[in-house]
């Protein structure tokens, strides 16, 4: 250990000598991934040794793994050595100085989403006052959170300030070698959020990381860790929007939720990464591992997600229901259009007695897109009287798109009960004609019909998010009729 320590220190020094810091104008690592890159990354972030060790362990695991190919998606091989693994926020001079310099198409989209002007500027990467920087936004609410004892900060900060909490829980839900993309994330994650809700505390605010990932192009490997201690509650919102770029970008995030006794975490996502253009060019590859561990008895987790973006989505927010009577919920809307591909769903792993889970999945396919639901419901031998309800609905718009459902059920306990319902429907010509005959134009009609289809999921979202999700669907469906 001491030996490694010295080596690391030397390396850090060497890096400094080689002028990363002096060379700060070049704020992006040259493409490529090796142990050196990880050491440099860790050094820049001034991480304690355990973090570097952890990253290296993950990297070594990753090297031994193969990229998964079982998802119902199709994409060219990612060249991991063509990616840059660190990019500091660009200097203000390099960014657009005002909204006038931003792509008007992008602004139009924001306008339709009803995003306030100053936030549009931030989304577009305009170098606005640091007040709009996510860290500062969080500090606006620092006082009520501090009073309640809630910790909410960038994970890079948590590594410094609360190393014992980070060391205890990081990787406890998604181990470094869990899967290919989780291993990669563990090795190179750039930043993300850390939340700790102390015992008995109901978080006084809805915590949100809205927009943050866009601010700079560093957000491809976020790491989020939320710990809800006994008898606590938190609702966390995650919003993602990405600028348009012609090349595909890899986004491999990991989210870990730890739920202790009687605690509850509600995690809502509205994902609108750039999906690529109408010809399938560009867009984000969104390979995300999200998992919650309901460790304590009577704990509860709800995942609610609205996925409209990304060229490819590969995402299965999961619940490990270890505590007795623990509850897992998954409410999902996944919309694909043009050439988008989504393979999404959930895993409900019932281990404790009397655990229950609910899955409501709504898949909407338009254009030439492909949308798959993949769900695993598993009952361990100890899952006495556990139960699951799954409802999986697909809606097709047009006749060139596809929907697939892959439900898997594994049971090692005879007392477990599973209910599964699935439907596939189309937006019918008759429905469209009815709307249009009443004066509602075709695009508005489709968006209304789709919103109706998603109602059960939207009602699980916090209010403002639900409104936004509706608008987002509307924007995402543009050009899907006619």
């Amino acid at each position, binding site marked *: 250990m001491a030996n490694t320590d010295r080596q690391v220190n030397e390396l850090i020094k060497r890096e400094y000598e080689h002028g990363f810091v002096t060379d700060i104008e070049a704020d992006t690592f040259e493409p490529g991934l090796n142990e050196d890159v990880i050491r440099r990354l860790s050094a820049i972030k001034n991480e304690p040794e355990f973090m570097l060790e952890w990253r290296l362990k993950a990297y070594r695991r990753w090297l031994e793994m193969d990229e998964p190919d079982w998802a119902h998606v199709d994409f060219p091989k990612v060249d991991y050595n063509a990616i840059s693994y660190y990019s500091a926020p660009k200097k203000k001079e390099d960014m657009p100085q005002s909204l006038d310099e931003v792509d008007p198409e992008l602004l139009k989209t924001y306008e339709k989403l009803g995003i306030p002007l100053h936030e549009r500027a931030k989304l577009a990467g305009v170098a606005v006052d640091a007040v709009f920087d996510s860290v500062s936004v969080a500090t606006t609410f620092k006082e009520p959170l501090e009073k309640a004892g809630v910790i909410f900060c960038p994970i890079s900060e948590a590594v410094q300030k609360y190393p014992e909490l980070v060391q205890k829980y990081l990787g406890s839900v998604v181990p470094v070698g869990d899967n290919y993309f989780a291993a990669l994330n563990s090795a190179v994650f750039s930043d993300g959020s850390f939340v700790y809700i102390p015992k008995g505390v109901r978080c006084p605010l809805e915590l949100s990381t809205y927009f943050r990932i866009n601010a700079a192009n560093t957000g491809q490997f976020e790491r989020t860790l939320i710990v809800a201690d006994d008898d606590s509650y938190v609702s966390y919102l995650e919003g993602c929007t990405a600028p348009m770029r012609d090349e595909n970008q890899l986004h491999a995030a990991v989210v870990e939720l730890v739920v202790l006794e009687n605690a509850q975490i509600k995690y809502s996502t509205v994902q609108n990464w750039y999906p690529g253009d109408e010809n399938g060019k560009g867009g984000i590859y969104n390979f995300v591992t999200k998992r919650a561990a309901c460790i304590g008895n009577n704990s509860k987790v709800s995942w609610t997600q609205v996925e409209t973006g990304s060229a490819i989505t590969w995402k299965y927010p999961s619940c490990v229901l270890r505590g007795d009577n623990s509850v897992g919920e998954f409410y999902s809307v996944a919309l694909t259009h043009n050439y988008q591909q989504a393979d999404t769903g959930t895993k409900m792993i019932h281990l404790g007695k009397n655990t229950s889970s609910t899955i409501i999945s709504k898949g909407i396919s338009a254009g030439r897109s492909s949308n798959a639901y993949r769900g695993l419901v598993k009952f361990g031998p100890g899952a006495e009287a556990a139960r699951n309800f799954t409802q999986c609905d697909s809606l097709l718009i047009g006749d060139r798109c596809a929907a697939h459902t892959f439900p898997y059920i594994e049971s090692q306990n005879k007392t477990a009960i599973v209910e599964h319902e699935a439907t596939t429907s189309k937006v019918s*010509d008759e429905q469209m*004609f009815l709307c*249009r005959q*009443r*004066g509602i134009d075709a695009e508005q009609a489709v968006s209304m*019909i789709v919103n109706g289809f998603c109602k*059960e999921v939207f009602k699980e979202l916090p209010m403002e998010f639900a409104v936004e999700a509706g608008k987002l669907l509307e924007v995402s469906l543009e050009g899907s009729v006619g």
Partner: protein
Amino acid sequence: MLSIKNLHASVEGKEILKGINLEINPGEVHAIMGPNGSGKSTLSQVLAGNEAYEVTSGEVLFNGENLLDKETEERAREGIFLAFQYPVEIPGVSNLQFLRTAVNAKRKHLGEPEMNAAEFMKLAREVSKQVDLNPDFLKRGVNEGFSGGEKKRNEIMQALLLQPKLAILDETDSGLDIDALKVASDGVNALRSADRAILMVTHYQRLLNHIVPDHVHVLAGGRIIKSGGRELALELEEKGYGWLGIKDEDDAPVAG
């Protein structure tokens, strides 16, 4: 108001309307009667702009403008309303939301201010009572789980809300019991006004006891073969379609 000249239309390559001529003036109520399969719904759908039906020749003027050139939604906003014979369900979309969107689309088109949710709620509650629908129906999905009669009354409610210039009612009486028929007819009669025209399509004459038409036309084989006043419907009731040499595929009585 509406002037149909030698209208021919086909569906899936089969000609259904074979030269329809019809003049409708503001304030008038016209009834089109005919046996099943004679093309009544086809005529209604063509006027409303359903793209499943192809107009092969002829002309339709609506307030002096070429109706057939206009998109469905534009026709609707300019005052053409079709009460469907078979109203379709839109699950999850509340009736209230659907109707407000429709009313506001029209208001916007006419340069009028849009109605907010509260204003519209008040209006919709009043109108729903007028057709004897519990205001709870406003919260339910469009036609979702409605009985046949409820669907029909919902259609009339929509006409009352949208205040069209020309209301086309396709078999609004079918599937209604006597009480519901009375309620629906009262709704339609409430629509009658000097600047509005109503085109009622029906197989049976019983509706015409409640909504007394100014003109009655008999449609058979895609053509209007006879026109007359109110008495024509009564005569048909008495003598049956056979009287005009028409075979009624259903052999259903004209009276009912």
